[in-house]
C-alpha cells in the first residue's frame, strides 16, 4: 500500500472534477485527479458533446430538406450512420485530446482507477492511498429508470442511444425533459417516428409555460407525437419492438424505448457515509459554499442537488478551487445558471419563469411582476432562417429583469446576453439605449427590452 500526498485530491474527472483540478493547479496546488473511466466524464463522452454533434447533423439534415425553398437544389439520399458516428467521435476525440493536454500542461497527476473514500482526507484506488489537505467529490450521475422498468435490450438510456448503429424507425421517449426532447428532435430529423411520454402536463416542465407550449406547437408541426400528463404504467418487449402501456390504458408501440427520466447521483458504495459525508436522496448535502458535512471535503457537479449541467459543474469546480485557495469567490447561484436545450427549435433560458417570479415577488401585489413576449415573427433574421419562436422577458415592476426565456432556431447562442442581463440585474431601461445589430436574432431581445422600457420600435 503506497501513500501519495497532495494538496487536493479530486474524485471523478468529469466537468466538475476537472474544472476544480485545473483551477486548483492554476492556483499553485499539487492535484491528484482520480478517474475510473475517461477524463471528461459524462459531458464529453456520453453527454453534451456527442449529443450536440448528432443534433448538428440533424440540423444539417433539416436544412437539406428545406434547401430547395432557399434556391439550393439537392437530393437527400439518407443518413450514413457510419459517417455520422465518425463525425460524432472525431469531435469527442478532439476535445478529449485538448482536455488531456490541458490537464498535463497544468501538471495534474491523473490517477486511473476507481476511488473510494477511506477517511476524511484520503481516497483509496486499489492499493494506493491518495491523501489531500482537501478533497473534492465529483462522481457525477447516471441515467435512472422508473420502478418496475428494467433497462436492457430495446429499453435503453442515452448511453446506448448514442451508440446505436442505425436510426430506429420508431421510438418512444419516456420523459419530456431536456435529454428526452433532444433525442426526440434528433431522431425525428433523421427520419424516425417519435412519441414522447411525459407524466407532467408539459414538455420541458421546468421551463416557463409559454416556452413549453411553443415547443409543443413546434413539435406538433414536426409530427413529433407526445402524450402529456399521463404517467407511464409498464413496458414489455414484443417480437419487433417495445409496447408501452400508459396509466390511462393507452398502448403505444415502437422499435425502441428511450428512458430519459432523470439522472441519479453516483454516491453509493464509495465510502461516503462511512467517512461521515451526509447524503439526502442520494445527493451529497453541502452548504452554499459547497462544503459537505465533513470539513475539508467539498462536492461539485451532478452529485449536488440542482440543475445537472456541465457549466454548473465548471462553475462549482472553479468556486471550490478558489475557496480552498482562500480567494473567497462569489457563491454560485443555481438560478443564474443558463439552460439550453438543443432540440429544433432550441430552447434557452436563465433566471425565473413568470410563475416562479410571481411566487417569489408577487405575493403582495399582482403588478409586482410583468412580462412581455416578442414573437420571432417580427425578427428579420428569424424570418430568413425560417424559424418561429418567442423571446419572453420577466421583470419586476420598475425593477430588474429576473428571467429570460427563448424559443427558436439558434437561440441557444443568445443565452450569454440573457445571462449577463439577469446576472447583472439590468433593467430593460439599461438595455434600451443599446440598439442591437440588424438583422440579427439578438435584435429580438433588443426589441423586447425596448418594449418593456416603454419604447417599442418594431412592435405595437
Amino acid at each position, binding site marked *: 500500500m503506497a501513500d501519495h500526498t497532495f494538496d487536493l485530491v479530486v474524485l471523478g474527472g468529469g466537468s466538475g472534477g476537472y474544472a476544480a483540478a485545473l483551477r486548483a493547479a492554476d492556483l499553485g496546488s499539487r492535484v491528484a485527479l482520480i478517474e475510473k473511466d475517461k477524463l471528461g466524464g459524462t459531458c464529453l463522452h456520453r453527454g453534451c458533446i456527442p449529443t450536440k454533434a448528432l443534433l448538428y447533423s440533424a440540423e444539417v439534415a433539416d436544412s437539406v430538406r428545406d434547401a430547395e425553398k432557399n434556391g439550393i437544389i439537392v437530393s437527400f439520399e439518407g443518413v450514413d450512420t457510419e459517417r455520422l458516428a465518425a463525425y460524432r467521435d472525431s469531435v469527442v476525440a478532439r476535445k478529449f485530446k485538448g482536455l488531456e493536454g490541458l490537464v498535463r500542461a497544468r501538471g495534474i497527476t491523473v490517477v486511473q482507477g476507481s476511488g473510494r473514500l477511506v477517511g476524511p482526507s484520503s481516497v483509496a484506488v486499489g492499493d494506493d492511498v491518495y491523501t489531500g489537505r482537501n478533497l473534492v467529490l465529483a462522481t457525477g450521475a447516471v441515467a435512472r429508470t422508473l420502478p418496475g422498468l428494467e433497462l436492457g435490450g430495446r429499453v435503453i438510456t442515452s448511453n446506448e442511444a448514442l451508440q446505436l448503429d442505425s436510426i430506429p424507425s420508431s421510438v418512444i421517449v419516456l420523459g419530456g425533459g431536456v435529454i428526452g426532447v433532444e433525442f426526440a428532435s434528433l431522431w425525428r430529423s433523421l427520419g424516425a417516428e417519435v412519441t414522447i411520454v411525459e407524466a407532467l402536463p408539459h414538455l420541458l416542465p421546468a421551463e416557463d409555460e409559454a416556452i413549453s407550449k411553443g415547443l409543443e406547437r413546434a413539435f406538433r408541426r414536426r409530427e413529433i407525437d407526445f402524450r402529456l400528463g399521463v404517467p407511464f404504467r409498464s413496458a414489455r418487449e414484443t417480437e419487433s419492438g417495445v409496447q408501452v402501456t400508459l396509466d390511462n390504458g393507452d398502448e403505444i408501440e415502437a422499435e425502441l424505448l428511450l428512458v430519459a427520466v432523470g439522472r441519479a447521483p453516483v454516491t453509493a458504495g464509495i465510502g461516503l457515509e462511512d467517512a461521515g459525508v451526509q447524503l439526502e436522496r442520494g445527493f451529497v448535502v453541502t452548504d452554499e*459554499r459547497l462544503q459537505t458535512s465533513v470539513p475539508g471535503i467539498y462536492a461539485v457537479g451532478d452529485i449536488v442537488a440542482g440543475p445537472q449541467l456541465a457549466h454548473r459543474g465548471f462553475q462549482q469546480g472553479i468556486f471550490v478551487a478558489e475557496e480552498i485557495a482562500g480567494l473567497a469567490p*462569489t*457563491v454560485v447561484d443555481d438560478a443564474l445558471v443558463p439552460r439550453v436545450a438543443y432540440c429544433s427549435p432550441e430552447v434557452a433560458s436563465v433566471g425565473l419563469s413568470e410563475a416562479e417570479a410571481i411566487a417569489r415577488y408577487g405575493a403582495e401585489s399582482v403588478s409586482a411582476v410583468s412580462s412581455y413576449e416578442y414573437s420571432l415573427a417580427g425578427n428579420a433574421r428569424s424570418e430568413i432562417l425560417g424559424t418561429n419562436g418567442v423571446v419572453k422577458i420577466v421583470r419586476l415592476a420598475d425593477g430588474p429583469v429576473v428571467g429570460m426565456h427563448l424559443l427558436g432556431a439558434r437561440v441557444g447562442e443568445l443565452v450569454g446576453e440573457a445571462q449577463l442581463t439577469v*446576472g*447583472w*440585474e*439590468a433593467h430593460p431601461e*439599461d438595455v434600451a439605449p443599446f440598439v442591437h445589430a440588424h438583422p440579427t436574432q439578438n435584435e429580438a431581445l433588443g426589441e423586447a427590452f425596448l418594449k418593456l422600457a416603454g419604447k417599442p420600435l418594431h412592435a405595437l
Partner: protein
Amino acid sequence: TLIDPTRRSRVVSPIVRRIAQEAGFDAAHLVGSGPDGLVVKSDVEAAIAAMKPQQQASA
C-alpha cells in the same frame, strides 16, 4: 455606518457599480444583502434613498 471605505463587499454588476458611482460612492463600501454579502442593486438604491434626507439636511 452605511458607507464604510474600509469595507470590500462583493459587486458583480457593472450596472450596480455605476449607479453607486453616479451617486458619488463605491458600491463595495456597502453591506450587501445578496448571497454571501453580494451588493445588489436594491442595496445601492436603498443607500441612495437613505442619503437623500441627509444631503438635504446638510444643504
